[in-house]
Every structure is written in C-alpha cells, then in structure tokens.
C-alpha cells in the first residue's frame, strides 16, 4: 500500500511537470513562471488568452483522453484475459470513425463530428454486447476455454467490417475533406472541444473500477478459480465491459482513434510494477494521461506552426520504448 502511494505520487508529479511543460510550449512560448502566475490570476494579455482559451482545455483533454485509453486498455486486457487486447480490439474505434466520417461528409461541423463519433462508438458497444451476450453472461466453468475468445472474435469481425466501410467512405469523399478525415483517423486532439470532460469521466470511471480491482486480480486466474473464490464472474465481466467501453467511446470521440496508448501503457507498467490491478489502474490513468500529453505537446511543437496527428507521435514514441522494455525484461528472466 505504501509502495503504491509512493508510485502514484511519483506519477502524479511527472504528470504535473508534463502539464506545466505543455502549457508553456507552443508557437507562442510562455515563460514557465508566467504560466503559474497566469493560471492563478488571468489577465488581459495575449499570453493569458492563449493559455486559458487554447492550451489549458487542450492540455486537460489530452491528459483525460490518454488516461481513459490506458484505463480502458488495462480493463480490456483483464476482461479478455489477453495481454494483446487494446481499447479498440472490440471495434469501438472503427464504429466511432464511421460515425465521425459520416458526419464530416454530411455536415462538416466539429460538433456533428463528435456526435457522430460517439453515436458510432455506442452503436458498436451495444452491437458487440448483443452479439456476444450469450457468452458474456454464461458461466461454463468446466469448459476448457472461457468465453473470451468468442467475445474477442465478435469484436475483431466488427472491426474488420468497419474498416471496409471506412475505406469506401474515403474513396467516395470529396478531395477537400480527405485531409481532415485522415487526421481524424490517425488520432488528433487539434479540433477537440472536449476540454475537461474526459478528465472528469476518467476520475469517475477510476472511482468505479478501483473498488473491484482485487476481484479483477482474481478474475485473471480464470473463470472457475474466480467463481470459486467468491467473485461474481458474470456480473463483474459485464461491469468491466461497460466501464472499458464507455472510456473508449469518450476517448475516441474527443481525440479520434489514437493508437498504442491503451496497449503500451498498461503493458509497460505491468513490466515495471507488476500486475496488481489495485496499483495498476490508477497508475495507468496517470501514466496514460502523461504520455498522451507529452505526445500532444510534441505533435504541436516539432514542426510548428504545422501540427502532426498525435496518433503518429504515440506510435513513434510508444513502439520503440515498448520493444526495448520487452527485450530488456525478457533477457533478465
């Protein structure tokens, strides 16, 4: 417990420093000390305008989305008992993309796009749940495999379907809209108007998931073992599915299909601090938020005034780190 607190404190500190950095840097540099002063007392200067109208909402959104993705990834991996699962494995991002692109084709406003993305994500969540319902809610402890493979396959098939639909839409889209669409598909926080909402939802979902963390540890031992230890497996599975899906839906609505955060952050943390979900879930929220915030800051500064899609940066940062971590830990065993 003391170890966990120390770790969370360390991660929170890293998050604060990254946030500070993010607020100070950009096409208009704000002096780090001015950042603190202006945050406390906004004035009429242009620095203050930039800080409060642009950077603060984007910083909060980036942190919230990153935390949601990492939390969703960790939960999905437990639900499916599969270390390779990520928040999008059940097709949620595909559904959101179809909804968002459709809205872009039809209306084009940012609000319509976010509504489209959220509707697409929710539709996918409900569809996967309905299709896999029989397996999610059945408790066959004597079966050799638990029901996870079928849930996984349902999601993977749906994701494949969405990907085909997205290709068709990109082929048919007018030239002028194509760039915006590709940005969205790669994951981008530039147009996000989510502000503090992802962060608030992250806090709420973490509070809902954390009390069940020890049951999740037990669930990782398998259906029969978990049920025998008094874990209500079916109820827990549905609950976790709902939490992870909601987190993914809000993240993807706010920032597009940003990859790798949901896969890399839980994994890297597992390798570093072990697999106790009580420690891991809050750590994921903090580290995921920090990583995406860092990536987003890079995305809007490296080729400024041009911006890169943040999804590209998370991949470029996440993949080598992850491979290095895997090789390093693998060699020591």
């Amino acid at each position, binding site marked *: *417990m003391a170890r966990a607190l120390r770790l969370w404190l360390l991660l929170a500190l890293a998050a604060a420093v990254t946030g500070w950095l993010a607020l100070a840097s950009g096409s208009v540099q704000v002096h780090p000390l001015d950042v603190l002063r202006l945050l406390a007392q906004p004035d009429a200067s242009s620095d203050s305008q930039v800080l409060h109208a642009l950077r603060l909402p984007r910083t909060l959104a980036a942190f919230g989305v990153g935390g949601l993705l990492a939390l969703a990834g960790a939960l999905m991996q437990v639900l499916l008992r599969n270390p390779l699962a990520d928040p999008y494995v059940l097709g949620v991002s595909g559904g959101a993309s179809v909804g968002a692109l459709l809205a872009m084709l039809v209306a084009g406003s940012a609000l319509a796009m976010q509504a489209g993305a959220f509707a697409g994500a929710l539709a996918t969540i409900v569809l996967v749940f309905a299709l896999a319902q029989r397996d999610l809610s059945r408790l066959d*402890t*004597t079966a050799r495999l638990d029901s996870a493979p079928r849930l996984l396959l349902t999601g993977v098939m749906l994701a494949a379907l969405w990907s085909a639909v997205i290709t068709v839409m990109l082929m048919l889209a007018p030239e002028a809209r194509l760039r915006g669409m590709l940005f969205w598909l790669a994951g981008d926080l530039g147009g996000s108007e989510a502000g503090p909402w992802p962060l608030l939802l992250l806090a709420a979902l973490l509070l809902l998931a954390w009390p069940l963390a020890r049951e999740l540890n037990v669930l990782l031992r398998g259906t029969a073992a978990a*049920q025998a230890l008094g874990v209500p497996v079916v109820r827990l599975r549905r609950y976790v599915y709902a939490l992870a899906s909601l987190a993914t839906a809000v993240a993807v609505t706010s920032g597009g299909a940003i990859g790798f955060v949901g896969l890399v952050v839980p994994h890297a943390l597992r390798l570093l601090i072990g*697999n106790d979900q009580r420690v891991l879930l809050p750590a994921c929220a903090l580290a995921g938020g920090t990583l995406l915030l860092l990536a987003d800051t890079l995305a809007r500064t490296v080729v400024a005034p041009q911006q890169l899609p943040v999804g590209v940066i998370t991949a470029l940062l996440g993949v080598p780190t992850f491979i290095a971590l895997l090789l390093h830990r693998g060699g020591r065993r």
Partner: protein
Amino acid sequence: MTTGKLLLEAKGLKVSAGPRTLIESLDVSVQRGELWCVLGPNGCGKTTLLHTLAGLRPAAAGTVTLKGKSLADWAPGELARQRGLLPQAQHDAFSASVTDVVLLGRHPHLGRWAWESEHDRRLAHAALKAMDLAELADHDVTTLSGGERQRVGLAALLAQDPPLLLLDEPVAHLDLHHQVTALDHLRRLARERGRAVVMSIHDLNLAARFATHVLVIGPGRHLHQGPMESTMNEVVVSAAFGHPVAAERYGNRNVFVAD
C-alpha cells in the same frame, strides 16, 4: 465454526453436461475428517460433479447443501470461506509472482477495502512451504513447469483454508514425491484439523492409500460409494473402468494392478 460434523450433503443429485446425463441420482454426505476420492473413467462426470458440489453450476435435479444450507442460498463471498475448489490445470496469461497468486486465495477473507495483512502473508507463506514452493516464492508463475503450477494452485487453496476442499485431479501433473507429500498434507488437514476433502484422482493406488471413502462412477451411470476398505475392490474398479484390474496385498494396504 459449527460443531456438527456433517459438511456437504447431496440428495438425488443429477449431474448432466448439455444433453448428456452423467450421474442419474447421487446421495452422498461428507463429514469433517473424511477424505473422499472420486474415481471413474474419462468423461464420466468427475469434473462436472465437483463443480456442481462447489456451487459453480446448478444441479440438474436434486439438492446440495453445505452445513445444512442449500448452495444456492449462500452468498458467493460467504460460500468461498466455506469451500474451495482447485480446478483442473489452469493457464496463466499474465505474469505474476508465485506469492501473489497464492495470496489471491485470501480474497474471500478480505473486506472490499482491505489489503493483505501480515497474517495473510504468513498463511500464504505456510501454504507455500507445505507445497515445497518456498524457494520459488518470487518466481513468475508463467515460467514454472506444469507440476509446479499445479502446486501453486494447491497452495492458493490451502491459503484460502476452507472447511471443505474440492480438488479436480490435484496430483495429475506432480512427480511421485510431491504426489505423496501433497496428499499426505491433505490427509492431515482432514484428520487433525477437521477439514473434509473431496478429490477426483486417476491413480488407484494413491486413492487406496489416502482415501477414507471412495465414490466410483462406473459405466451406465452406476455408482458405488462408501468407506474405502469395503468399497474399493477388484470387481468394482474393473467394472468402472471396463478393464481388468487385480488387487494384491502389500503390507497393510491394497495395491491395484491393471492387466
């Protein structure tokens, strides 16, 4: 702890898997201090029976009571303090230290907000020692051999420490030495600490050596049950497995040899 010796009682219990009826009607009562071995050929329903007795699946017909209370009436957490189940070979998708896995056995004893205490750690450590795993305590379970993993599962069950222990082929992957020491430990739990043990097992000689009672599931859903000495004989065993088995006396116990 209740003073009654009767722990588990099944009446007219029917066990089926899908459309297949495996056991037509079973009446059995398990008392504290008893060690039951369930014997029978592959697919005769040993696993399904154990899971039904553990309350993980509903009985197709009949009733199962634990301490006089129907299994369905127990809250899951409460039930987990009364009976434990060691499932057949588990596979681990994620790394975890042996100690952490064994500590999961303490889950039913901890409140929602509680973390494992020193007491829990001591129990886990004792369980590790009993299963000869003390040296592997910090190892990653995914790097262990099949038999070692099986012992980790056993240790987790010992840490759970329920009055009724149900085990599905607990010694299947163990080497000779650990088969005997594991069963010896279970027998001591039954004899000295008033636990009851019900396990499925394929080794007739280990069953004959350690069981106080046996349940033999034969073909045609034919059941034999009772004290080991009077129930386990050539005729019953040969019929159950559909294979001639001879019994010889070795010291003061029976040894079964397949033809």
